[in-house]
């Protein structure tokens, strides 16, 4: 991108003050107006102050030029969270009809240096939107997720690209790879739900397949909440008891002396739904649910005692015969 000397002036060691830059001679910088009694005042470096004094002058004059574009780069480097700078930079890019593929390369570098910043990811999204081309986006987000597999911004950008440009084809393979690397990567489980919900949907066949997928992972690590949450998510629009395999699966683990709080919680939920939908053996189901709430409160999940005691009281009052007076 032809941005003059910005690549040199932007870095700290070779920074040239604006008074020594002939191309800026005609501009009168505008100092920040904090008022007579400033608070939370930041002791800016000379460089920061000067760059932003010139940025304000450029905005005030509504100048859209090569030098203004290069100035936004300097300003963004000093504070990548300054959304006004990014916003103004986009205005210039449009006005000058700049080559957007170069901008994409530039923002890639900025994101790699600031992967947890709202503004830089939003800038990338707008550029991709303008380009109407997301061919680099899956690879780019994978690169970011390689360093931090749960980076929320990266997942958000990836989901947007997938949805906007219909890039669903290989996403489940990618999710699968991530889950094999780290079965506790909850972002990957969430992505699995996102993909299936928006492609095949959770049809009867898919439900069977996905239950098995989750259960295989649960067997390997029954204390992994992510897999449990996903398994219940598969049945979100159904009932847990509609699929007898879920309760059988739970009973099997329980009989093997596994006491993961997530296992017991799943059993309680199944029982609760059976009560809600008037399944037979009501009293027996109720007693099982209450006993499990008690087990969690007193033994397996004592941190959440208040919660499990509430759940027990709540289930008892809704479905208990002693409260309602009849069955």
């Amino acid at each position, binding site marked *: 991108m032809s941005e003059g000397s910005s690549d040199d002036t932007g870095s700290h060691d070779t920074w040239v003050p604006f008074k020594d830059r002939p191309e800026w001679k005609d501009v009168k910088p*505008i100092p920040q*107006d904090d*008022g*007579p*009694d*400033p*608070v*939370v005042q*930041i*002791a*800016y*470096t000379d460089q*920061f102050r000067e760059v932003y004094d010139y940025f*304000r002058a450029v*905005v005030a004059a509504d100048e859209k030029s090569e030098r203004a574009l290069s100035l936004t780069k300097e300003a963004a480097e*000093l*504070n*990548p*969270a*300054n*959304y*006004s700078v990014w*916003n103004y930079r*986009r205005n210039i890019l449009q006005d000058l009809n700049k080559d957007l593929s170069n901008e994409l390369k530039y923002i890639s570098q900025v994101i790699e240096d600031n992967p947890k910043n709202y503004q830089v990811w*939003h800038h990338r999204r*707008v550029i991709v939107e303008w380009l109407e081309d997301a061919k680099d986006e899956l690879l780019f987000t994978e690169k970011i997720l390689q360093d931090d597999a*749960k980076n929320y911004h990266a*997942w*958000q950008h990836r*989901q947007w690209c997938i949805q906007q440009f219909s890039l669903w084809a290989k996403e489940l393979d990618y999710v699968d790879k991530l889950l094999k*690397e*780290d*079965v*506790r*990567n*909850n*972002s990957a489980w*969430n992505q699995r*739900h*996102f993909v299936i919900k*928006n492609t095949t949907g959770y049809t009867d066949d898919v439900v069977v397949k996905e239950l098995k997928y989750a259960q295989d992972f649960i067997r390997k*690590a*029954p*204390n*992994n*909440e*992510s897999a449990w949450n*996903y398994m*219940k*998510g598969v049945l979100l629009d159904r009932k847990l008891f509609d699929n007898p395999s879920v309760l059988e699966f739970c009973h099997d683990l329980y009989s093997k002396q596994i006491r993961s709080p997530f296992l017991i*919680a799943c059993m309680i939920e199944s029982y609760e739904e059976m009560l809600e939908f008037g399944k037979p053996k009501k009293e027996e189901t109720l007693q099982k649910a209450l006993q499990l709430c008690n087990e969690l409160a007193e033994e397996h999940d004592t*941190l*959440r*005692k*208040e*919660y499990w005691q*509430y759940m027990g009281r*709540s289930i*008892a*009052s809704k479905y208990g015969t002693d409260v309602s007076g009849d069955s």
Partner: protein
Amino acid sequence: MADPSRFRCLSPSFDCRRFNDEGVPTQTSVEQKQVEESVIKCYNHFKTSLDVFPDVPFLERETHEQFLIKGLHGLSSSYECLDSSRPWLCYWILHSLELLEVPITEERALQIAKFLGKCQDPEGGFGGGPMQFPHLAPTYAAVNALCILANITEKAFDVLDREKLYKFLMRMKTSEGAFKMHQDGEVDIRGVYCALSVARLTNIMTKELTLNTAEFITRCQTYEGGFAGYPGLEAHGGYTFCGIAALVLLGHTERCDLRSLLRWTANRQTQLEGGFQGRTNKLVDGCYSFWQGATFPIIHMIMCTDDDDQSLSAERWMFNQEALQEYILICCQHVHGGLIDKPGKARDHYHTCYCLSGLSVAQHFVGGSLSNDIILGNPQNNLRPVQPVYNISLDSVMMAQKHFGSMKLPCENESLTS
């Protein structure tokens, strides 16, 4: 000497709370174990201090106050990265001081209000600093800060242009019922919460401002039970707070699956540390003491008033209030003042604000006419209670209601054409 059995972190079974990787070590479990080691170190150190100081843990009010007051005056150049968050800095500091009940002079209060006025855009809304474009997040911070200042002097509200604020909010509204953070900016559930919070406080909540907004929020609740920043994304503590608080502000709490929200939020309290994580299988962070912690009073309030749920406790929130206080007081206080994410992290005003806010939620159960204080450690650790939906004190909310409550709603049609 204080009785060690009072503390969860010193109980004999505490070691059993370590993360069990079940023979399947992954990056998640490795990082979790590292954090647990650093937290255990803090708790062990605390155990030795028990012999010397009977009333520990102790909230170091003075050093926190010094850190906050110093920031109010001025900040070093390392804060340049927060140059677009200056109303936030005001709010984080003022709210922390409000919780600690540190008085502020009327003169100082007016100075801060005037500075916030400098951040206000001529066309409405507040920017991250003087002459920056208006943005919903600093707008939320500025309005909250002004409500706190109005407790000291109601003149603080004079800087606020309420009519133009409404026009700004309307300009940010999207067709799907959400809000852009700024002109040409990103859309997520933060925008919804920020917009509705300031609209309620300043009494400019109109039907057209909230059209389709409940639908958008509902779409953000995930299969896990918490809320995501945008439909499809992962449930997350900050966004979950925004989602449920926004539904309360809208009066549409029936749109939320409360039971799954409660289950997800209850599961975010971490077994060993006692603090909250932001997402499933992520690390504890002091700031979620508020984002997750405050969701409990909100859920309690909804279940009590909307559902008249008789099974609710009249004494406690549905999380372990003592465990959270132990984590904040023992693991999150920086030795030079200010509070932190987790042991070893740097202090900042954001974490100071949200650790203290979470501590306050953990100390005070308030349900209608009922109240129950659970103050861990020194009785002077007692903080002022917060209003969990806005995260300012009850008095600050009442000041706003008193000041703006009788003002006329903006004219809807007129603002549509503006």
